[in-house]
């Protein structure tokens, strides 16, 4: 049988299913919400377990301490931790006429994260049909990210930091929703395994023409809290190698400090920034990011 009739493109009357119209409206809403955001920067690794979420929370606090209006969007929907790392209270987000007001940390950072919405210990799960969830789960998470961008009352921000989960897919989602993404900060640990995974993420960012503001090597040695001496923690030199290969600046080497997570979760980000070697490096990295997007 030969199909012999007009195609979709031939039909010029409006699409009365209104699906295209709704998708267009969604993108317009994201753009309108972010119109007051001067710079949107994603923090990415591509590799899990490199301390990215803590580092991002510290960077946000450091930027806020410099007098900037700062937002922190946790795009890690499955393993959210930005609220915890920022020490914010996970209850009572106000729903206004215009959207949902973000939580605000002691440092003044406006935070939105799935960990503000989920019961303690509850995994991210969606109401779903009994099977074939692989078909729609990615679309669902992308839509959730879109709502976090479009429906949160970010207000006027100098800097919106987006904490991306491991892997590369969420950067693609974010870049499609925010085509004028101002830059990407890449985190790695020194090891060769991390270097290989992060290199793939950086290559993908390059292919999408997202500016790479720089590389941060986290857990770059162990800063002994007693003697102050920094010792090697992982073999490798991934930060320098990735920076050289991708012609991006190495923004800093952050020593591992066992007190960092506790300080962040207990609202002690200022102490962390002032009194730890890791905090001082991240403070300088925050300064470099701010300069990079100016």
């Amino acid at each position: 049988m030969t199909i012999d009739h007009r195609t979709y493109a031939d039909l010029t009357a409006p699409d009365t299913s209104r699906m295209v119209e709704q998708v267009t409206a969604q993108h317009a809403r994201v753009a309108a919400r972010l119109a007051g955001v001067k710079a949107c920067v994603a923090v990415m690794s591509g590799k899990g377990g490199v301390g990215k979420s803590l580092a991002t929370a510290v960077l946000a606090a450091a930027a806020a301490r410099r007098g900037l209006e700062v937002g922190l969007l946790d795009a890690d929907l499955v393993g959210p931790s930005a609220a915890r790392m920022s020490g914010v209270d996970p209850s009572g987000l106000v729903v206004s006429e215009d959207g949902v007001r973000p939580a605000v940390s002691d440092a003044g950072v406006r935070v939105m994260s799935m960990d503000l919405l989920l019961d303690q210990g509850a995994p991210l799960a969606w109401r779903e049909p009994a099977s074939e969830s692989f078909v729609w789960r990615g679309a669902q998470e992308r839509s959730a990210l879109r709502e976090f961008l479009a429906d949160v009352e970010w207000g006027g921000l100098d800097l919106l930091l987006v904490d991306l989960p491991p892997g590369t897919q969420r950067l693609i989602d974010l870049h499609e929703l925010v085509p004028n993404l101002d830059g990407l900060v890449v985190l790695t640990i020194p090891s060769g395994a991390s270097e290989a995974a992060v290199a793939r993420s950086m290559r993908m960012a390059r292919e999408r023409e997202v500016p790479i503001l720089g590389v941060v090597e986290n857990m770059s040695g162990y800063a002994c809290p007693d003697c102050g001496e920094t010792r090697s923690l992982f073999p490798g030199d991934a930060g320098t190698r990735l920076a050289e290969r991708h012609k991006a600046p190495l923004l800093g080497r952050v020593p591992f400090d066992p007190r960092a997570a506790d300080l962040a979760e207990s609202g002690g980000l200022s102490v962390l920034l002032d009194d730890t070697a890791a905090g001082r490096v991240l403070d300088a990295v925050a300064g470099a990011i701010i300069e990079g997007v100016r």
Partner: protein
Amino acid sequence: MKFLCVECDEQMIFEQRQLPGDGTLAAAFRCPECGRIVAMLTNPMETQLVSSLGIKIGGSEVPGQPLELVRSSVVGGREDAFVEEQPDISPALDRTGPSPSVVWSLAAVERLEGVPRFVRGMVKRIYTDYAKENGITEITTDVMDRARSDLGLEGM
């Protein structure tokens, strides 16, 4: 998504959407020339795929709510995650002029109280907007059923 009446060579027009409540969806399209109606029936997975995009076939009669997809889809949401600032006010509808007040029947209130708190404020606002949009002054369980189907509020 467009439907063509091949016999008339006319683009068909979206007519209505129904959610039977079993996860499936029916969307009817009508030929403006011959009046023939065809129904597109989707299985639960296909229905969910469209829903996951945050869109509704045929659009919606009432304004979207903040974090509507997240709040209506997440399982295991915190009971105290949200506080509604003004539970029954929809600015988009208010702009059209004074709206009649809407009351809830006892049975409707009881059903609403069965909705998890994570999403209850949003659900209440959606039903209220729907009632105002359709000139309904009392929200009953029948109205809630109709709104669910008309608005595609599967599971609310």
